[in-house]
């Protein structure tokens, strides 16, 4: 059994290596769905971690009107602490806000001079609220919109950040859906192309197949090499695809880090390379074997 398998693999490899032009074309076509599926998985994971990191940074800043007393603010703080969804609260007084601003811009004479011109502090006291999950901010902001706080609260800036979070979420969710659809379409295209390649090989070798039968070859001794050919094409497509992705991740990682400071796709690639190998290899070999099997079933009547 092992000897038979070894010979089938060897025969498949020989056929593969003796028709490099046709096989290179097949490998190139198979590269596309493998790349698309890999891209989809990387996007799904990195998108998710990007959202999580943005959500982690998300908070609600409640700015209080200038004439509001600290006791009123602490009163709201107390009420907020009773909400189980609130993870942390930080009070920043007008003075603290002013100090922070001065610390940050002390080297900017224009800003410092402008600040001195003002008779009163332009900063508002605020409460920074952090929730356990992003979805809980809606509830917290709902609480702050109550009628009773209307005279105290100047603005709640959750709504200013909300669209950014939602946009990223929508974008990744949209890309995920498109990614799945595109991967399926490209996988079907690859199956059709590999199917056609193997079909042509079968038709081209129809006479040889007849001779193989006449000299006593069993069905699997004839069919097996075609399956192996498909699988080898898949393996080569995987190797090329893996190298292309490794190179892309290596070169693009620093550039993407400028846009998204929390995104390091090279780190993602290197820490998940076994998973990526598995996905790419399974897709490549799977596509190769499935399409060869269809071609054999349809065109190789023994």
């Amino acid at each position, binding site marked *: 059994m092992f000897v038979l398998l070894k010979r089938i693999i060897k025969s498949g490899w020989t056929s593969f290596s003796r028709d490099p032009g046709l096989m290179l074309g097949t490998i190139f076509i198979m590269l596309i769905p493998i790349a698309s599926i890999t891209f989809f998985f990387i996007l799904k994971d990195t998108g998710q971690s990007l959202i999580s990191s943005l959500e982690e940074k998300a908070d609600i800043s409640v700015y209080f009107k200038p004439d509001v007393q600290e006791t009123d603010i602490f009163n709201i703080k107390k009420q907020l602490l009773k909400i189980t969804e609130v993870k942390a609260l930080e009070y920043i007084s007008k003075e603290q806000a002013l100090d922070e601003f001065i610390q940050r811009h002390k080297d900017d004479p224009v800003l410092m001079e402008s600040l001195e011109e003002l008779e009163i502090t332009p900063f508002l006291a605020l409460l920074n609220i952090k929730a356990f999950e992003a979805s809980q901010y809606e509830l917290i902001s709902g609480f702050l919109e109550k009628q009773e706080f209307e005279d105290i609260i100047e603005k709640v800036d959750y709504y200013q950040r909300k669209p950014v979070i939602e946009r990223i979420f929508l974008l990744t969710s949209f890309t995920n859906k498109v990614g799945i659809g595109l991967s399926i379409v490209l996988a079907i295209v690859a199956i059709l192309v590999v199917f056609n390649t193997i079909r042509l090989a079968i038709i081209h070798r129809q006479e*040889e197949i007849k*001779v*193989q*039968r006449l*000299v*006593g*070859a*069993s069905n699997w001794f004839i069919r097996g090499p075609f399956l192996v050919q498909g699988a080898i094409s898949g393996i080569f497509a995987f190797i090329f695809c893996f190298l292309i992705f490794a190179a892309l991740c290596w070169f693009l990682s620093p550039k993407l880090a400028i846009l998204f400071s929390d995104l390091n796709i090279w780190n993602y690639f290197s820490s998940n390379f076994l998973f990526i190998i598995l996905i790419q290899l399974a897709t490549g070999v799977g596509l190769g074997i499935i399409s060869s099997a269809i071609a054999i079933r349809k065109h190789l009547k023994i």
Partner: protein
Amino acid sequence: MIKFLNITKIYPPDILALKDASLEIKPKEFVLITGKSGAGKTTLLKLILVEEKPNQGKIFFEGQDLCKIRTGDLPQLRRKIGTVFQDYKLLFSKTVYENIAYVMEVMGADENEIKRDVSQILDIVGLENKAQSFPAQLSGGERQRTAIARALIHRPDIILADEPTGNLDPYNTSDILRLLLKINELGTTVILATHDKEIINSLEKRVITLDKGKIVRDEKKGRFIL
């Protein structure tokens, strides 16, 4: 070894290839099948190889009814037969060595055994220098010798040779006949289909003559009479 009982073979729509043919071939026999083109020689060999099935009658090979043989058992049957085709029927994508080794590979022979036997047979048929050549790079005689080597390599019980010298010059013809006689002397049954008068007359072996699908003569030491 082989028994034909009232075999009739008609190719669609109504081409009569064999009509009510009965014969028996014993082990270690050397049998010549002769007749004009279209007399039914190739069909007779195809029926033994179960490449075709008869419309009527029964064929037995080593006691096995070939009309009832299951498709899955065909490879086993064909491994007992070595066939030399007039048009060689070599595997064009494989080298001479691979063509010959293929038969042993399908039988599951050991790799060392394959190497040893293929080298030996290449030496016997004089193709040791052409082992890595593809059939397209060979002359007609070389292709035929490759086909013969392939038919012999697995030491079959019987050799079916359909016009094996049809495309060859007299030198190659006599080489191949000598080889077939030698194999027969070593105990392999040989069935040789030919319409070459000189071959038939020179061999002085059993001759079965076919005419329009009918066996018209079956002589122990026959001569070419049409």
